[in-house]
C-alpha cells in the first residue's frame, strides 16, 4: 500500500495517532534495552532533579525514573493489551451471543452480567487478587473479570437491533451461517461501539492497575506507569517539594499520550466503518 493510500485510509490525525501508538510499542519492546539502570537499582541520590545522568530525575529513594518509565511502557502496554483487549473480547463475545441468540440465553447471560455489574468492584478485586497469582497476567485476568460485564451490555445493546434489520435478514436468507453474518454484517456495524469500547477498556485497565496500587489492594507489578504515579502520590512530600514535576507528571503524560494516540486512530477508523459519516457536513457552524 502506498503512503498516499495509507493516508487516505487513516487521515493525517489517524496517522499521527498510529505513529504515537507505534512509538510506544517500540519503547515497550526496546525499553528494557534502552534503560540505563535496572528498575529498582539505587542509581542516584533521593529526589535528584532531571539531569544528564537521570533524564527524568530520581524518586524518593534514588531510583532512576527514566528506567522506570521505560519499563513502565512495557508493563502498561501488556496490561492494556491483555486486560483491555481481554475485557473487550470477553464482553463482546458474551454480549454478541446474548444479543444474537436472544431469548433464554439472553436473559440468563444478562442476569449474570447484572449481578457482576452491581457488585462493588474494589472488594471484588481484593477477593480475586487473593485467589489469582498476581503478575501481569493474573492482574489482567482480575481486571477482565471485573470489567467485562459493562462491555457485554454495550455490545449486546448494539447487536440486539441488528437482528431485526432487513439487510441482515437478507443475508440469513441467502443461507449465511451465524459466523458469516456476525463477521460481515454485525462486526462492521458494531465496529464503532467496539472501537470506543476498546479505548475505554484499555484506559480503564491502565487506571484500574494504577488504582489498585494506590489503594494498597494488590500491587503485583513494580514497574508500570500506574505504580510510578502511586509511588509519587504515596510520598507525602510530593507537593511540598517540586518533585511532582518530574515524578508524577511524566507517567501521567505517558498514559495520556498513549490514550490520545489510540483515540486518534479510533476516530479515524470510525470514519471508514461508517460511510454515512462522510455525508454529514456541519451546518450553521460558522453562521
Amino acid at each position, binding site marked *: 500500500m502506498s503512503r498516499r493510500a495509507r493516508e487516505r485510509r487513516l487521515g493525517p490525525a489517524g496517522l499521527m495517532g498510529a505513529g504515537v501508538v507505534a512509538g510506544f510499542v517500540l519503547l515497550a519492546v526496546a525499553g528494557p534495552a534502552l534503560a540505563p539502570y535496572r528498575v529498582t537499582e539505587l542509581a542516584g541520590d533521593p529526589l535528584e532533579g532531571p539531569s544528564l545522568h537521570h533524564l527524568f530525575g530520581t524518586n524518593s529513594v534514588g531510583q532512576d525514573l527514566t528506567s522506570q518509565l521505560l519499563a513502565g511502557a512495557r508493563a502498561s502496554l501488556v496490561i492494556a493489551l491483555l486486560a483491555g483487549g481481554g475485557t473487550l473480547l470477553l464482553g463482546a463475545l458474551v454480549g454478541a451471543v446474548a444479543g444474537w441468540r436472544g431469548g433464554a440465553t439472553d436473559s440468563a447471560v444478562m442476569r449474570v452480567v447484572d449481578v457482576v455489574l452491581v457488585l462493588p468492584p474494589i472488594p471484588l478485586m481484593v477477593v480475586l487478587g487473593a485467589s489469582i497469582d498476581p503478575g501481569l497476567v493474573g492482574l489482567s485476568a482480575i481486571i477482565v473479570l471485573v470489567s467485562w460485564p459493562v462491555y457485554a451490555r454495550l455490545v449486546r445493546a448494539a447487536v440486539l437491533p441488528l437482528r431485526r434489520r432487513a439487510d441482515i435478514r437478507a443475508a440469513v436468507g441467502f443461507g449465511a451461517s451465524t459466523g458469516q453474518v456476525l463477521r460481515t454484517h454485525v462486526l462492521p456495524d458494531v465496529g464503532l461501539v467496539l472501537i470506543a469500547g476498546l479505548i475505554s477498556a484499555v484506559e480503564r485497565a491502565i487506571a484500574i492497575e494504577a488504582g489498585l496500587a494506590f489503594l494498597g489492594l494488590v500491587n503485583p507489578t513494580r514497574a508500570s506507569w500506574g505504580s510510578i504515579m502511586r509511588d509519587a502520590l504515596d510520598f507525602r512530600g510530593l507537593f511540598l517539594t517540586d518533585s511532582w514535576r518530574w515524578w508524577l507528571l511524566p507517567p501521567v503524560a505517558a498514559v495520556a499520550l498513549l490514550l490520545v494516540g489510540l483515540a486518534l486512530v479510533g476516530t479515524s477508523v470510525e470514519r471508514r466503518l461508517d460511510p454515512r459519516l462522510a*455525508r454529514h*457536513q456541519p*451546518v450553521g457552524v460558522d453562521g
Partner: protein
Amino acid sequence: MTAPALAISGLQVTYVGPPPIRALDGLSLDVAAGECVGVLGESGSGKSTLAKALLGLASGAAVEGGLRLGGADLGEVDLGGLDEAGWRAVRWRRIALAVQSTSSLNPVLRVGLQLAEPQMVHLGRTRAEADERSAAVLAEVGLDGEALDRYPSELSGGQRRLVLLAMALVCDPSVVVLDEPTAGLDPSIRARVVDTLRRLRDERRVALVILGHDVEAVGAVADRVAVLYRGWLAEVGPARRVLDEPRAPYTWALLNARPTLGSVKDLRGIRGDPPDPTEIAPGCPFVARCTQVVDLCATGRPPLVAPTGEDGERLVACVRGGVVTLLEGRDLRVSYRLSGTGLGHRSTVVAVDGVSLDVREGEVVGVVGPTGAGKSTLAMLLVRLLEPDGGSVRFEGADLLAAKGSALRAARRRVQLLFQDPYEALSPRLTVGAAVREPLDVQGLGLAEWRDERVRTELATVRLPSDAAFLARHTHELSGGQLQRLALARALILEPKLLVADEPVSMLDPSEQAKMLQLLKHLQVERGMAMVFISHDLAVVLRVADRVVVMDAGRIVEEGRGHELLLGARHPVTKGLLAASGRSTSPDGLLLRPTSRPDG
C-alpha cells in the same frame, strides 16, 4: 405571464467526492403555479439530488446555477445566494419536500410533534392549532388522525410515506417537491394521493414537482414531463405527448424498455450501462448508448430546443433533433408479371401495393402476414434488391433509389438483408470462411489478416466455431441451423445500421429458434441496429419487435405496438394470425399493473 413559481436555470450539482460526481448538469426548468411537472428518470439520474438542491440541502456538494422562487403574491426569492439562515426561512414555508426514504422520520419523536414543529417554527402556531391542522392534512391523504400519537416505528411503510407527504403540506407551501410520492402504496391509497395532489394543484394552485421513475405514476398527475438522464434533461414537454411520442432518443429507449401492460415482448434494457457518474465527458451524456450517434454528439451538451415540427412546448436535447428515421419507404409498389399461360396474354401480381414503412434508429419493426402477403418482396424493395414500380426509399436521409456508385456501395454496407432461405443465399461452392468473408472482399475493406480476424469474431458472435477446419468446410456440409447462423454472420460482418431479416428462424426447431431469436435481439440491442423482422408467426414477432405491421395482399392492414395489437386487434387477418399463434385476444391475466419497487 407571471413569473414561474419555481425557476431553475443551469443548475449544476457536483458532489465533491473524491471522486467528484456531477449529479446534476446544467438543468433548467420552470414550474408555474398550479402546474404539476413530473421529472422522470432512472435510478441514479439525479432526482433526489434535484429535490435536495431545491431546498438547499445538497450538503457535500457544490451547487451552481440559478434557483428562483416566485409567484404572484409571494414575491421573488433568489435561492442562489442564500445562507443557511436564509434557507431556513424559505424551507417548508415556501417550498416543501416529501422525501423518498421512510427512515427520514425521527424514530424517537412522535409523528404529531414532527408534523407540528415546522408549523410552530414557521407559522407561529400553537401546538394545538398545529395538531388540528396536521390531523386535517393526514385525513386528506387518507390517514387517521390517531397516527399523530404514534411513533414512526409503529406505522407501516406506506403509512410513513403518507406522513411524509402530509408533512410537506402542513405549512401550505407554494411549491411542493415530491420524491417518489407513490412508491410502495397500494392502488387505492395511491389513487387517493394522486387525487390529493390534483386538488392541491387545481384548487390551491400549488406548483408541484414530482420526481419518479415510474412512468405511469408520474404520467397520472403531471401536466408536463421532464426526462432526466444523468443529471441532464433529455426532453421536456406536455405529459401525454412526451409519453406517447417520445422524441429524445433516451426517452424513446426508456419507454421502449419499460414493461407495459400485457407486454409479451422480451424485456430488453437500453444498451450499454449508464455512464460512470464520475466521468464528466463534454458531449451528450447518452452518447455511449445512443443508436444514432454522429460526430457532433461528442462535442457538446446538446441544448434543449424545440425540434422542427414541434411547438415551443416540446423541447428536446439532441443534436439530431430527436430520434431520426433511418429508413423511410414511401408508397412502395411493385408487381410481378406472371409468365403467360398462352397467346401473349399477360397478367400481373401486385406483390406490394402502396406500402409505406418507416424504421427509426434502433427500432425493430416486425412485419407479419400470411404467406404471399408480400413480406419478402417488401424486404427486397427496402434494401433495393428490387426496383419498385413506384414510391421512394430514403435511407439515412438520402434517396436510396437514386444512389449510384460509391454512395450506393456505402449504403449497401449499412443495410443488409438476411435472406429467407439460406440454402439459396449461400453458394454451395464457397467454404464457410470464404462465405463470411465475401462481403468484406466485395467492399474491399481492410487487409487480409484483418478480414480473417473479423470472420472469426463474427462467427464467434453468432456462436459458430471459428477454427480452421470449420472455416474450410463447404456450406452444404452444414445443418440448417448452422447455415442460418452463417447467413447471419455474413450479414453482420459489415456492421450494418439496418438489418432486414426475412424469416430468420423459419428453418429451425423450436429450441434452436429460441436461441437464434435471443441472439438476434441481443445483437440488435448491443450494436444499436435497427431491424425489420419479417415473419408469418405473430408470436415470434411480438417477442422481438417494438412495432408491428401486418400485411395482407401487398398492403398494410394494421399496425401498432405489440401490446396494442395483442389487446386490440381489429383486422381479421391479424386476428387470424393471433389465433394461429395460439393466443387469446383478451389476455385479462396480463392486465395487472406492474408493481413498483418495494420501499426501503
